[in-house]
């Protein structure tokens, strides 16, 4: 007994048994069964050869729809920056007055804060994208150049816009190429000084 104890001075810990069993079953299991079958998830996620196909009609239609939405969004942006938005009414009923240099609009009897001015300056530095030709055709001639658009920057959050004017724009009017195009230029409201 003493001899055996002296021989087995190296005890088996649980971790030792773990690694031993792993090796043991690796050797015991038949070779054709050692590799576990791939799970359904891994089969699904396995890289398959990419099949390139032409875009379907649905995909093309979705692309055109996306382009249409983007064009409408751009149109609204441009319209927001156009003189239409100069019909400003502050929450307390004061009429807004355009600055002579047309870079910003100040509301009468309401002081322009420093943060407002800073925001205006930052916004004015951002280059605006050139709108598509069909949108440019809908704008007044003085606003068709990108520089003119960039000059019309609002410094307000936009809650003082009179949206009734914006809604009058015929955005979804179908184009009829057979007839000369009918342009609808929104009338510019007169400011109190001009009346």
């Amino acid at each position, binding site marked *: 007994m003493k001899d055996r104890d002296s021989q087995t001075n190296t005890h088996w810990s649980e971790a030792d048994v773990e690694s031993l*069993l792993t090796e043991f079953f690796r*050797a015991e*299991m038949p070779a054709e069964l050692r590799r576990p079958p791939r799970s359904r998830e891994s089969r699904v996620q396995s890289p398959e050869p990419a099949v390139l196909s032409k875009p379907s009609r649905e995909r093309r239609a979705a692309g055109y729809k996306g382009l249409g939405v983007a064009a409408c969004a751009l149109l609204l942006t441009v319209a927001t920056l156009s003189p239409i938005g100069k019909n400003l009414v502050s929450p307390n009923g004061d009429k807004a007055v355009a600055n002579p240099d047309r870079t910003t609009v100040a509301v009468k009897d309401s002081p322009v804060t420093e943060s407002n001015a800073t925001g205006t300056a930052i916004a004015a530095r951002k280059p605006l994208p050139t709108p598509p030709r069909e949108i440019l055709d809908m704008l007044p001639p003085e606003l068709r150049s990108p520089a003119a658009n960039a000059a019309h920057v609002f410094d307000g959050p936009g809650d003082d816009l009179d949206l009734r004017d914006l809604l009058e724009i015929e955005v979804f009017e179908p184009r009829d190429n057979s007839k000369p195009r009918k342009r609808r230029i929104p009338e510019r409201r007169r400011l109190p000084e001009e009346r």
Partner: protein
Amino acid sequence: MSKKRSREWLDQIEQVYREQGRELWALFYAQCGNADRASDALQESFARYHEQRNGAPIRDVRAWLLQVGRNWLRDVARRQKVAAKPTENLDYLPTRTGEPADSAISEELRDAVREGLAQLKPADREVLVLRYSLNWSSIRIAEVLETTASAIDMRLSRARKRLAEILEKSGMKHERP
């Protein structure tokens, strides 16, 4: 039966073997404690499954194969009047000669592990086989054995300790690297 249908049947058997063979082998091993006999049980169950081509349809193929293999193991043990003890089987069953490059442990140590597994309680042997041959998690073993994962962890720890005791009693040294 046309050649095409026969080919489809063989393909189906092959697919079942790929998906279920490993797990069935481990369950047979947990029952008999001998790798070769577990392989024989697996082969026997699939041979019977192959004969069932024109028989009644099998609803749960895995359960059917498991039952056939277990019955076969029980019959063999009863015929040979051996209660699935690998130490006795080693005298007349061919020892599994694994490839030397495949195994990092000696044949002597593998025999000792076989003997140790055979001396464990069936429930302890079962969790060890499921964990270390199939690499199942405690949660999955608990689902199969219808118990909790913490109970499986406790049973695993107890089984490892018992196996360590058996190895030490048999005089097997653990050579630390």
